[in-house]
């Protein structure tokens, strides 16, 4: 540790969303301005549905798939993609010392069972015994395991053999930033050589829409890109999985793994969200990330479209006109826990190519990119709490 912090490389990326799977498919779909939203299935709520995926490709046993609810399948699949891209799949020695930090929600429910119970309760003579009996009969024993937050990590251990350690952070967007931050801190300090970080969300769930609808955070009725939602704010939940393999440069070199990009720093904070807090907090974090690759770059923004967080983030971004902005939420929706890891993956593929994808932003806020991209800053501002930034650099 006396030699200063070790470098953290991104050596593997596994992503899937409404735009398909894999870094290149995402870059191309974003560059083409593709938007995939479903405005009818959960109307008036708008969601970004998962693109068709063959889960067998990363979760070969049907028995394993049956033990999972969709959010776990999406995450276990994305983790498999990340391990494959890092050349780590099936490498028992490497997987046995690979640490894992998952940012997770959880709790997919049996909506039909809940509805039947709620329908029956008013008619039941004694309500509490009725609830007990229905739950005893209607809850599937294995559903509990498909709901537990830490069982995404558990399934990744079982399906892919990642066993060095297994930790699950909870807490919406902030948990996704913390998972990456702690992963990087462990590598920089020598506590880990290689870490799998990320998360997954099934955004096509009424009980999740319900949680956010209590405070009217959902985008309804009409779809508009993130920066154009000012008069009609809200996020459109997006189904997605995103995992990164983070690795010390020494470990990667020793096993001949090729890096996509360098994850130079991850910083975050918790403000009380008084008016203006997001802007000033991001400005404070900006001073901490220590740019060293010149003045130009790109922001890969995780702006959600909810207010006032989106306007306050925009005010911060406007203060750095030398950075072109791309809000991926306009295309893939809001992934909550995995959003930050997803955007780091999208930043990594962009700096690896040296080219930012194009934008069709109707507000004009997202200007055309500069010629060569050597660095990108990822923003992660929670819809209610949590502010984070990450610096992703090209490795020359």
């Amino acid at each position: 540790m006396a030699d200063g912090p070790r470098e953290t490389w991104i050596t593997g990326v596994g992503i899937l969303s409404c735009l398909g799977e894999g870094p290149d498919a995402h870059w191309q779909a974003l560059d083409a301005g593709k938007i995939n939203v479903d405005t009818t299935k959960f109307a008036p709520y708008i969601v970004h549905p998962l693109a068709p995926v063959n889960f067998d490709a990363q979760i070969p046993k049907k028995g394993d798939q049956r033990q999972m609810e969709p959010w776990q399948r999406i995450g276990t699949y994305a983790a498999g993609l990340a391990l494959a891209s890092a050349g780590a799949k099936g490498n028992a020695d490497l997987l046995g010392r690979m640490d894992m930090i998952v940012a997770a929600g959880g709790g997919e429910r049996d909506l039909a069972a809940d509805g039947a119970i709620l329908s029956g309760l008013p008619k039941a003579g004694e309500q509490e015994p009725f609830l007990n009996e229905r739950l005893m009969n209607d809850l599937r024993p294995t559903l509990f395991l498909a709901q537990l937050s830490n069982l995404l990590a558990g399934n990744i251990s079982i399906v892919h053999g990642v066993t060095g350690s297994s930790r699950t952070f909870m807490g919406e967007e902030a948990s996704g930033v913390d998972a990456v931050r702690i992963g990087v801190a462990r590598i920089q300090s020598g506590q880990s050589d290689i870490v799998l970080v990320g998360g997954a969300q099934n955004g096509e769930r009424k009980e999740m829409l319900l949680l956010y609808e209590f405070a009217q955070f959902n985008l309804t009725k009409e779809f508009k890109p993130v920066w154009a939602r000012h008069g009609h704010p809200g996020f459109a939940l997006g189904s997605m999985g995103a995992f990164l393999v983070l690795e010390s440069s020494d470990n990667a070199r020793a096993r001949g793994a090729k890096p996509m990009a360098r994850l130079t720093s991850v910083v975050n904070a918790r403000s009380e969200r008084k008016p203006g807090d997001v802007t000033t907090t991001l400005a404070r974090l900006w001073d901490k990330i220590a740019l060293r690759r010149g003045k130009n770059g790109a922001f890969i923004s995780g702006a959600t479209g909810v207010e006032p967080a989106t306007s306050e983030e925009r005010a911060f971004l406007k203060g750095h006109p030398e950075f072109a902005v791309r809000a991926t939420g306009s295309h893939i929706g809001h992934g909550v826990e995995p959003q930050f890891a997803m955007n780091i993956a999208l930043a990594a593929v962009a700096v690896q190519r040296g080219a930012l994808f194009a934008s069709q932003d109707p507000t004009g806020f997202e200007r055309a990119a500069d010629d060569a991209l050597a660095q990108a800053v990822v923003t992660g501002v929670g819809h209610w709490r949590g502010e984070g930034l990450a610096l992703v650099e090209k490795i020359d």
Partner: protein
Amino acid sequence: MAAMHDKAGRPMVVVTGSGLVTPLGAGKVDNWKRLTAGESGIHAITRFATESLKTKIAGTIDFLTVEPLSAPAMAERLAELAIEEAIAQSGLGSRGHFPGPLFLAVAPNELEWPQREVLAKASGANETVSYDDLLRAAASGRFRSYHERFLFGSVGEALAGTFGTEGSPISLSTACASGASAIQLGLEAIRRGETDAALCVATDGSINVESLIRFSLLSALSVQNDPPQGAAKPFAKNRDGFVMAEGAGAMVLESYEAAVARGANILGVIAGCGELADSFHRTRSSPDGKPIIGCIRNAIADAGLTPDDIDYINAHGTGTPENDKMECLAVSAVLGDRVKDVPISSNKSMIGHTLSAAGAVEAVITLMTLEHQRIPPTINYNVPDPAILLDVVPNAARDARMRHAISNSFGFGGQNVSLVLAREPA
């Protein structure tokens, strides 16, 4: 300065304050008195009706009133009490400002039946109720408070605000190992030099009818309801499952250097931590015990010790047939011939299983065990299991000379964490 660091050259991490709430009571003094007297905090459930349930007992916290009651509201209240005790003892920081990050072990959060029923009623739906009706009720804006209360980050955010911890609060779940993971995250942050202090807390107030039924459907719970105090029987041949309980444990961790510099009283040392995930099955341990064995060995090695240095083990000891068998196998493999001479007891025999909180609750008690040089017993040990040849400190507390202890925590999803605690800095 070398003495301020451990054998690996990392900052040594000490405990300068701790707090505890369990079904036995609030505060360490009460808990210690009752733990060493071999008393049980398990009782018949009165919080909700238990008709048609197989398990009708638990260690619910009934001496606190939380209105309106929900798992996150109870978890927050329990954590507040434990944190207040820990911070007061440590004397660190000031009111509303703790100079370090929060690491919180807490149960996953979701809307509960009382709220669903309120929404169903508010929706005005008549014959059948669906989630579309609940969504319509939510869209009215009348239930805005449910958003903050049932977010996964709800309890952590509230505690970070109340106690003024620094940075982003981390809420975590490693199932029944969560409490130990919270301590581990604090230990690692101090070792990295990111902070001089950390507030590590674990809390669980999630006993409601659905959570009980979920565990019941996995056949994980004891069904020996009468007498309730006799249900939790770790390591006994007639053990038949764990007993759910609520509680919280909190620790103020500091670098030894910072603690000495401000003249703080040092309760003990977090000497090491080990983990190893199990990829065998979602709820069962690998039959060869390798992940648990590796976990315990990693913890001992991380502390720079050998198995011969371990004087006591605070068992995970849930009282399920599977856990206690596997834990016995693992500690036998790690300790070798010494296994019969090293006492191992389960606090869960008295407290029940505080789930997300257990790892921290038991770490707090383990440090008290070292402080008092007295081991709380494993109660309800009346029918020895011939397959478990351990000194479980049956039924009565015992004095012993101990320098180093292990606290084990194992959970669903292949989660294994072991802590090594020491009485004094080495």
